[in-house]
């Protein structure tokens, strides 16, 4: 899987962004960043010629019950190099800058994350549900998800919250 981002460079990034952190113990540490500085960090990673992370290989979110975590796996084709960027988001109001501003190809993946995990992407060009029905009012990949009940009302399929789980 190529080589991982050097620790010296991580140190450099940490100096540049005050919210950046990483666990120096790990072999391949993910870099944690505050969500305000995410866009700036990504811009640096993408546009600095010595990094040149031109591929957003994977984009997803994990629900850790207290908080959400966005996970970005970036890959640089020129240097065959990896980096994982993670952002912690508030569980009550998960909001993060959209990566479509830097990598246009993350459009569908962010829509999917919005649909299934309920993360709101700011500045996304077309943030709609992609896999679930448009009138579905829950986010299935969250840990506290309870399936909605389908009902047909006046020829239209609607979704209702279940009364109780018992």
């Amino acid at each position: 899987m190529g080589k991982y981002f050097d620790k010296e460079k991580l140190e450099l990034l940490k100096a540049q962004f005050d919210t950046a952190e990483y666990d120096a113990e790990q072999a391949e540490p993910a870099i944690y960043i505050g969500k305000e500085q995410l866009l700036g960090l990504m811009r640096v990673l993408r546009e600095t010629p010595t990094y040149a992370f031109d591929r957003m290989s994977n984009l997803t979110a994990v629900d850790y019950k207290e908080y959400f975590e966005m996970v970005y796996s970036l890959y640089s084709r020129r240097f065959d190099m990896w980096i994982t960027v993670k952002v912690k988001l508030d569980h009550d109001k998960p909001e993060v800058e959209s990566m479509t501003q830097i990598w246009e190809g993350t459009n569908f993946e962010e829509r999917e994350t919005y649909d299934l995990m309920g993360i709101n992407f700011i500045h996304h060009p077309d943030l709609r549900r992609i896999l679930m029905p448009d009138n579905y009012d829950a986010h299935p990949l969250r840990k506290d998800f309870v399936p909605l009940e389908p009902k047909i009302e006046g020829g239209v399929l609607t979704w209702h919250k279940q009364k109780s789980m018992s």
Partner: protein
Amino acid sequence: MAQTEKYVLNMGPQHPSTHGVLQVQVELDGENIVGAKPIMGYLHRGIEKLMESRTYTQCVPYTDRLDYVSAMNNNLGFCMAVEKLASIEVPRRAEYIRVICAELNRIASHHVFIGSLTNDLGSATGMIYAFRDREKILDLFNIICGARMTAHYIRIGGVAADAQEEFLKGAQEFVNYVPAMLDEYDRIFTGNEIFQARMKGTSIITRETALKYSMSGPNIRASGVDYDIRKIDKYGAYGDFDFEIPLGEQGDNWDRYIVRLKEVQQSANIIQQALDNMPDGPVMAKVPKVLKPPKGDAYHRVENTRGELGFYIVSDGSTKPYRVHIRRPSFVNLQALDSMCQGMLLADAVTAFATIDPLMGEVDC
């Protein structure tokens, strides 16, 4: 005064040529396409959610159902991600058998591509020829694992059972048959002038667009980007084999077809090398019956038939994965559909659906 008006044509999810249950809202001006908007989700089964309530071993059959025409590649991707998470070393022989199965499945999947492409171009005969040859591979899978499509053969730590002599002989026979097969395709499709007229110069994806949309697999290689994870990452046993990455020039439908045709040749080449140098030994590593990977996360990607298939797995130290995310290549590739269709005719849209080769089981997950 005469007046023209754009209109929206709804292709799919029930349409003879949208693959699976893809719905595309095509905006048309006469027969010229102004825009194409893919709408998916009709086959959404929530596999990512399902996996959270299954043990690691039980998750593997679900990966079969992602990209069901190249199930072996999906098995491989998931198993390798779990092996990375749990630091399991796979025996050499198992790696070789995995490569043979994955490459056979790649050829089978390209057969489906050729078949559905020719069928969409209006020649049902082509479809039958491609499926006839695919049948040979499916029969081989039936020998080695007892299922034709949903293989569930590659397991965490190795493969389910050792490859029999019968399978290896059959694989050799198939590799010997490949040149004759490609020659027949050349005569009936590739050389055909109507076929060329339909494909050349249509639905171009430029190098820049392909990179912009993070495309992968044969689609990006047809646009001239040398990006094959088998070559870059050399995962599994792929480092041992010598093979080329076929590249296209301008990224039109024709290039996407030719690249896949050449890939069949290269896959046969890899299988031949694997068969010649097949090591002996066990096919299954020592994996505990109750697999509990340590706390942490891992992302692993493999070259699926359709591109970069990645599995991101978060483990909380229990027997079940805390979160599985699947980066599906055809889902990401579909973003390019709009720019492919713009300015083309309705008939080209059908060709574009076919050459971008989405598989709805994978797109909708």
